[in-house]
């Protein structure tokens, strides 16, 4: 009996040690990020492609998309997330962060003090991004107004309050390889970079499993709206008949091929993307068509 208990005890301990080890935050070493020079003007395009303002801009009817005070809510099955202040305020924003800390927050979901972020922040998509783009983004955000609003804590249920557990989630779902692979044209590859990494289209257009991981086998097949009624539509499959021209025109104008006008959460996406070069919208369109083949 005593032997059995000892074995059991050692087993439990091993699982605990393994779990602790597996759930540790992984970051990109500073040495891999030295020498990156952020270009604020280039960063503005990353800011638009990434849709940062959609979640992080201040609240209120006449919110200024360059005031990144946060406080916007995102409902989910796990509770309500509130976007944090990412304005350059040194105390309540990210003004005190180094470029490397910013890149690790965005590409690895790890805070400067080594905590995991919840994937309501779409770092599983940004993980595929070029660190240079986030160096540029960091430089751009530092040019925006500082706002002293304190970030509001998330309102989550147990056990989702244990951030360390996200380390295990990341083992399963944080990967920096592409979803759509194979021989891609230059436009399709650029579109993939935008759609899979910066613009994180899959975060809404792809269904999730019970623990919130994206189901890559059902990429872009549409999903329930996490924050209310209705669905985020499929953008692949037999029900989606748009052409490349249609998709690019929609991202530029907000008009569907039937001349319905964009609404809901996609409206802000279009407002951002229409400020990119038309070639980038064409590239996203080429990629979306490719993803459906």
């Amino acid at each position, binding site marked *: 009996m005593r032997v059995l208990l000892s074995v059991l005890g050692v087993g439990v301990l091993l699982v605990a040690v393994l779990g602790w080890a597996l759930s540790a935050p992984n970051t990109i070493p500073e040495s891999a990020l030295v020498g990156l020079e952020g270009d604020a003007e280039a960063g503005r395009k990353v800011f638009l492609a990434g849709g940062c303002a959609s979640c992080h801009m201040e609240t209120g009817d006449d919110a200024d998309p360059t005031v990144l005070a946060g406080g916007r809510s995102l409902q989910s099955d796990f509770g309500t997330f509130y976007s944090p202040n990412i304005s350059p305020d040194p105390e309540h924003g990210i003004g005190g962060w180094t470029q490397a800390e910013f890149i690790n927050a965005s590409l690895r979901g790890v805070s400067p003090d080594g905590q995991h972020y919840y994937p309501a922040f779409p770092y599983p998509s940004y993980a595929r991004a070029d660190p240079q783009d986030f160096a540029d983004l960091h430089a751009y955000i530092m040019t925006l107004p500082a706002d002293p609003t304190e970030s509001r804590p998330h309102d989550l249920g147990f056990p989702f309050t244990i951030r360390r557990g996200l380390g295990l989630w990341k083992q399963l779902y944080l990967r920096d390889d592409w979803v759509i692979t194979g021989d891609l044209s230059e436009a399709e590859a650029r579109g993939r970079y935008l759609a899979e990494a910066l613009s994180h289209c899959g975060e809404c257009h792809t269904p999730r499993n019970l623990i919130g991981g994206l189901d890559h086998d059902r990429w872009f097949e549409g999903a329930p*709206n996490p924050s*209310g*009624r*209705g*669905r*985020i*539509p499929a953008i692949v499959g037999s029900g989606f008949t748009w052409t490349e021209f249609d998709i690019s*025109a929609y991202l530029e*104008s*907000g*008009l569907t091929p*039937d*001349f*319905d*006008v*964009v*609404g*809901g*959460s*996609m*409206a*802000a996406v*279009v407002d951002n993307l229409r400020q990119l070069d038309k070639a980038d919208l064409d590239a996203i369109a080429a990629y979306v068509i490719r993803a459906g083949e």
Partner: protein
Amino acid sequence: MKFRAFFGAALLVATVSMPAIADDDPAIGQRQGQFKLFVHNFGALGSMVQGRIDYDADLAATAAQNLYHVSRHDQGRLWPEGTGSNNADGTRARPEIWENLDDFMQKFVDMQDAVEALQPVAGDGLDALRPVFGAVAGTCQACHETYREESS
């Protein structure tokens, strides 16, 4: 501000005579019919702006005129309370419409104004049409962003 006057009356009628469940309220389909007529005309203009069809001054002027008239259709009995997505099927009208009626109506009036500006210039060529068409689209989007559910 005709919209506002008739809206108040409609709500009063609605609260007196309508049960809470309004799944089969004909107003839902009727207001959707109105938006289909919007699209019928707005789409003709959009097809020209996007180069899907050649610009045709007569068609553009007619579509703009139709839009003007459709946008003037009195909204009084089209939005009875209880016909939002929270208590009726087959509608994407968010309940926030009835919580923020003033703002909803203002967005409708913004659309009416944009459509009014479209009418005199739609027949004057693509370059004249393009910006005012874009302004109309912007007023549609402003309302859809806040008051329409995601796809059903």
